[in-house]
């Protein structure tokens, strides 16, 4: 049984044991662009976006207790706002992306706000509906050029910016979230997930904490959307596609829910796989869902938890 005691970082060995996996992860991600061909570099960018969504999903599901079935809404919100700012006002990406990230997050949190007082099922249902409803409204009212979308948006100067921007965002988000869940606000959120009535009996307003959590998760998703619109220089209703809702969930289940790292890795595994299957149309989605169900029923701990267990066992081995 592991205790959460404070490690006495007295030996280099201990430090190496703790830091190694993280270094491998960071370096691995940062070095990838240098070894991949151009086609796969593009895939890497997509993977990064899915990784942000998966991270947000895992955070909301395992640390706050809210299942978000509508990651596509964040992508769409971020993408449309940044694209619109660029197309109608001519602002450059360096402005539109931050503004879209924050405004998109505010907007998403606002529309999800009414469900946060209610049981988790409402959040799941409403988050599922919003991306689809957004598409219906955009098409019906024919705003933002409806189904055609808007093209010829500003893009990034070169493919290196493309990749390192998103990889940087993923790494920063990942470490920020890991810090957050161990900070006081993270502990309260986990408390809310474990037993919300007890948290209320301690005088804390759970709705306001859930709101903050949804805002944080949507920041990541909206950044992904804003980034996406400038990656390809185009926005349209496909920003709200079901892919963005389901692949992060499959990535999280595959990678190991609750670990935050697992979903990110899951995204980097599933996205290339999905690319390889692009020729088969909707088979990709069917496949992610089958994988998802397979894992959730038979191996719910996911890859990361499995690997972590093995790694800790390995460590004990060495000492003996």
């Amino acid at each position, binding site marked *: 049984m592991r205790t*959460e005691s404070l490690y006495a970082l007295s030996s280099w060995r201990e430090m190496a044991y703790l830091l190694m996996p993280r270094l491998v992860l960071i370096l691995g991600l940062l070095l990838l662009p240098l070894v991949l061909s151009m086609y796969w570099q593009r895939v890497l960018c997509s993977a990064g976006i899915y990784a942000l969504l998966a991270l947000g999903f895992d955070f909301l599901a395992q640390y706050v207790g809210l299942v978000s079935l509508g990651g596509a809404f964040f992508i769409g919100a971020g993408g449309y706002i940044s694209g619109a700012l660029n197309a109608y006002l001519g602002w450059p990406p360096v402005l539109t992306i931050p503004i879209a990230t924050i405004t998109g997050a505010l907007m998403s949190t606002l529309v999800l706000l009414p469900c946060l007082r209610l049981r988790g099922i409402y959040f799941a249902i409403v988050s599922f509906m919003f991306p689809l409803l957004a598409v219906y409204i955009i098409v019906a009212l024919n705003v933002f050029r409806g189904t055609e979308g808007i093209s010829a948006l500003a893009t990034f100067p070169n493919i290196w910016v493309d990749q390192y921007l998103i990889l940087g965002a993923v790494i920063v988000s990942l470490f920020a979230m890991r810090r957050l869940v161990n900070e006081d606000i993270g502990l309260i959120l986990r*408390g809310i997930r474990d037993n919300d*009535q007890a948290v209320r009996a301690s*005088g804390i307003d759970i709705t306001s904490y859930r709101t903050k959590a949804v805002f944080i998760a949507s920041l990541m998703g909206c950044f992904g959307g804003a980034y996406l619109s400038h990656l390809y220089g185009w926005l349209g209703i496909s920003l709200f596609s079901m892919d963005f809702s389901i692949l992060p969930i499959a990535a999280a289940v595959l990678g190991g829910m609750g670990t935050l790292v697992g979903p990110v890795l899951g995204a980097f595994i599933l996205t290339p796989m999905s690319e390889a299957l692009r020729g088969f149309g909707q088979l990709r989605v069917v496949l992610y869902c089958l994988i998802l169900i397979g894992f959730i029923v038979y191996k719910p701990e996911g890859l990361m938890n499995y690997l972590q267990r093995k790694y800790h066992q390995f460590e004990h081995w060495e000492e003996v």
Partner: protein
Amino acid sequence: MSEEIILRVRNVRKAFGGLQAIHGVSFDLAKGEILGVIGPNGSGKTTLVNIVTGFVKPDSGEVFFKDKKISGLQAHKIADLGVTRTFQIMRPYHSLSAFKNLIVPLNSPRVRRTRGGRLGDRDAVAIDILEEIGFERDAYVPYKMASSLPLGYLKRLELARCIALRPEVIICDEIFSGLSMAEIATMIPVVEKLQMEGITIMMIEHRLRELFRLANRVIVMNFGEKLAEGTPEEVMGDHKVKEAYLGTEAA
């Protein structure tokens, strides 16, 4: 123990569907006293606690805390004012370690207002509270995951969660249930110490002998009504109470 009334419950009624759970109950809680609430199962004790602490809204009637009406307020606002409770069904924050369970109340607006203090303080405060309540620091008990603790520790953790909030009133819902005599013996001094520090306590209990050691006054509930009220001796001598517990023949 002063005669100042800190909590007033007036004519509270609550029905769930067709079942009238509480039939118009009124009582006063004096500041600094320990009030016991006893009664057979199903007599409405936990519902009463839920109503006072705001987890359930009464159909009619009012609750006053220090002359301020709290019935109708949301649960977390009532806790923020200083009225907190334990839960009969134990659910600690199982994904957190024991002392981290206390970080939650230590971060509540109420504690921030009354204590202030830098962020780093909270861990130490949490461990201190746990140590006072019997979590042996040397055995690293406070650091264990809450889900791995046995019942005795969990009950104390529940109480610690209330203490961490620095409340004025703690309502305990059967904190002695499921504990051995030895474990209860270690908890009784804790409760006495809380009273000495000026905290008012209301205890729902089935373990009458232990409760009567602590309680200044006792209320007896039966079928959602207040059957009797008084000191432990008065109440146990009351023939209505004997009837409720033992049946008419023995009375």
